[in-house]
């Protein structure tokens, strides 16, 4: 997976420095003293789409049934009515909590979460989006409203570490461009049960943190071959998966808390929730993480048991998995799940090969 941030963060040209200085001046001059967004090359940038940040189901229906002009008019007419919270909302609040803690401990650091609104909505809809952001007092200062164009190119331009959307096609495109991305699924009203002091992120292992190389073996040669293979190659690190760099970015921020003796009180906690078994195939995963210099707070080996009940206990703000089967299982029990459309798992459903339909002419919105 490509490195998103420039390898030498200090190498910015004078034009950029001027823009940065002007931004700093502007935010410092504000009476409200709201925190200014961090320098992109140091930040962990998370781009969210408008439909993940806010619940726009009713509005979406208008768009699909009556067309774009009616949709934009509707949004303009309701500009001053805040939108309802969306599936990524709890995650955004948790990111903001982490930022507050980081700012307390490191007041001059630019190593923070930066939340960017990335939408192909028409700019006129933007007024309602900004009003809604104001209503909930979210720290989102950067956005791209591309008026119908795909936002994918902008993800790179904003040095995005993670992209969340409801649109599976855009997410697939982002992953193909080397950007960690996932499609979010609504799961009902869970936010009042989620922690508001600690960000919890759960990851599946194969084809999410790691490549799908082992999953290919399972699908094509069966479980027995898989176990033998993993035992034989226990000490050979797996290749990276699409979300590895995001875990790495989280780890970097975690270490900032450890450095200030806040390990017990760290507001970020990571989980590995894998179908692998601790007794056999699990060892390779732990050794791989160690070889990458990455830590994960809790590794949960289910040995094939359903993930839903365990996730229900963990209550993560987001859970990443490559297989829709697990996403559905998580959703059923109220977990906020995000599908990573990567690897061999996309061609199978519940163990059976999916017939690939002919590609229709798709509406790109």
């Amino acid at each position, binding site marked *: 997976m490509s490195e998103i941030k420039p390898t030498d963060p200090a190498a910015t040209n004078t034009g950029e420095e*001027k823009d940065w*200085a002007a931004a700093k*001046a502007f935010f410092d001059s504000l009476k409200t003293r709201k925190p200014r967004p961090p320098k992109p090359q140091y930040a962990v940038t998370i781009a969210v789409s408008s439909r993940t940040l806010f619940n726009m189901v009713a509005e979406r229906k208008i768009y699909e049934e009556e067309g774009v002009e009616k949709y934009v008019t509707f949004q303009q007419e309701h500009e001053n009515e805040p939108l309802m919270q969306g599936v990524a909302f709890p995650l955004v609040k948790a990111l903001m909590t982490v930022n507050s803690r980081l700012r307390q401990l490191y007041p001059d650091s630019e190593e923070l979460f930066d939340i960017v609104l990335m939408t192909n909505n028409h*700019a006129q809809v933007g007024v309602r989006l900004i009003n809604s952001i104001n209503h909930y007092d979210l720290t989102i200062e950067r956005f*791209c409203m591309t*008026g119908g164009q795909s936002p994918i190119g902008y993800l790179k331009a904003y040095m995005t570490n993670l992209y969340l959307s409801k649109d599976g096609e855009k997410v697939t495109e982002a992953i193909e461009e080397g950007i960690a991305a996932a499609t979010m699924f609504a799961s009902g009203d869970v936010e009042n049960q989620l922690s508001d002091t600690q960000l919890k992120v759960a990851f599946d292992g194969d084809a999410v943190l790691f490549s799908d190389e082992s999953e290919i073996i399972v699908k094509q040669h069966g479980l027995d071959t898989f176990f033998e293979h993993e035992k034989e190659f226990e000490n050979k690190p797996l290749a990276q998966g699409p979300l590895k760099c995001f875990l790495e970015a989280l780890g970097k921020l975690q270490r900032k808390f450890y450095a200030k003796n806040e390990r017990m009180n760290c507001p970020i906690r990571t989980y590995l929730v894998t179908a692998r078994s601790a007794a056999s195939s699990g060892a390779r995963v732990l050794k791989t993480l160690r070889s990458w210099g990455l830590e994960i707070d809790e590794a949960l080996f289910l040995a094939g048991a359903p993930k839903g009940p365990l996730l229900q206990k963990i209550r993560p703000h987001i859970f990443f998995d490559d297989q829709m089967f697990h996403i559905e299982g998580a959703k059923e029990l109220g977990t906020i799940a995000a599908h990573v459309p990567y690897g061999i798992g996309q061609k199978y459903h519940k163990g059976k090969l999916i017939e690939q339909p002919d590609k229709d002419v798709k509406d790109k919105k």
Partner: protein
Amino acid sequence: MDSMVRNPDVKQRDAAQAVVVAVSSDAIFDPEVEQVHGATEPLRKGDAFSFMKAIQVVNERLLTMNSDETLLFDVILLSNDSEEKHSRIIASAKHYGLDIGRFCFCNKEDSIESLQSNNVKLFLSTDTNDVCKALQKGVPAALLYRPTDPHHQTEDQLKVVFSGDVIGSSEEMLHGLREQGFTETQLQGFKTAKGSVKEFAVLMGEMRRRFGLEGSPLCTGLMTVWSSRNVCASALKTLRGWGLLVDEAFCLAGAPRSPILNLVQPHILCLDGLYHMEGFTGMS
């Protein structure tokens, strides 16, 4: 003193109703080329070429919808070149089939006057200094954006982006910048910039409304470079109040602007105050 030459190959617009735009010839035709005396072959394409083609697309679409349309782009090529180059410029315009209504040949010192006397709604140049000078003299001007890869810039759609940091900032906000290292000249410049952008924005708004939300040959955008989201929202509403409903909006809040501009690839970048950033060092 200027000499104004009408282009016989192009149907003359009603200058009172049209959006008269003056473009520097150095932008349309590459000035770097070695001038060989007596050379007659067409000049090489310059940075503004795709802009010229895009303007043509907009005009053609407008005329297709209404053959009596008067709200069209009317391009004046502004040249400070020596007399021996004049006929070559005219011939090159014909060679490429450029929709240039008039050629204005004058000395560099007289350029501003020529712009003022021809009711130019916008002067376009790839040179930021020329744009600044024109703006200081009260001539509405904007930058012809030079993309890193000129061949990549679209010719099918004209993209006009307005910067909104000053448009969207209240008097109070601009006043507050005084303590942050901005000079009095810069702050005064911001105030006048706001006014100069308005007329062109109104015209673009009117033209944009001739087309639907999708499939428009004219795409308008707003970008704020250093301000917060509320300044961007305020700029959106201000433009809306002037009749311009922009299609795209970008709020950078200090993020580097080149990667974004390289993607947006505007032809015209209306800087409301950004050019005043030259020389800004902030609080050290």
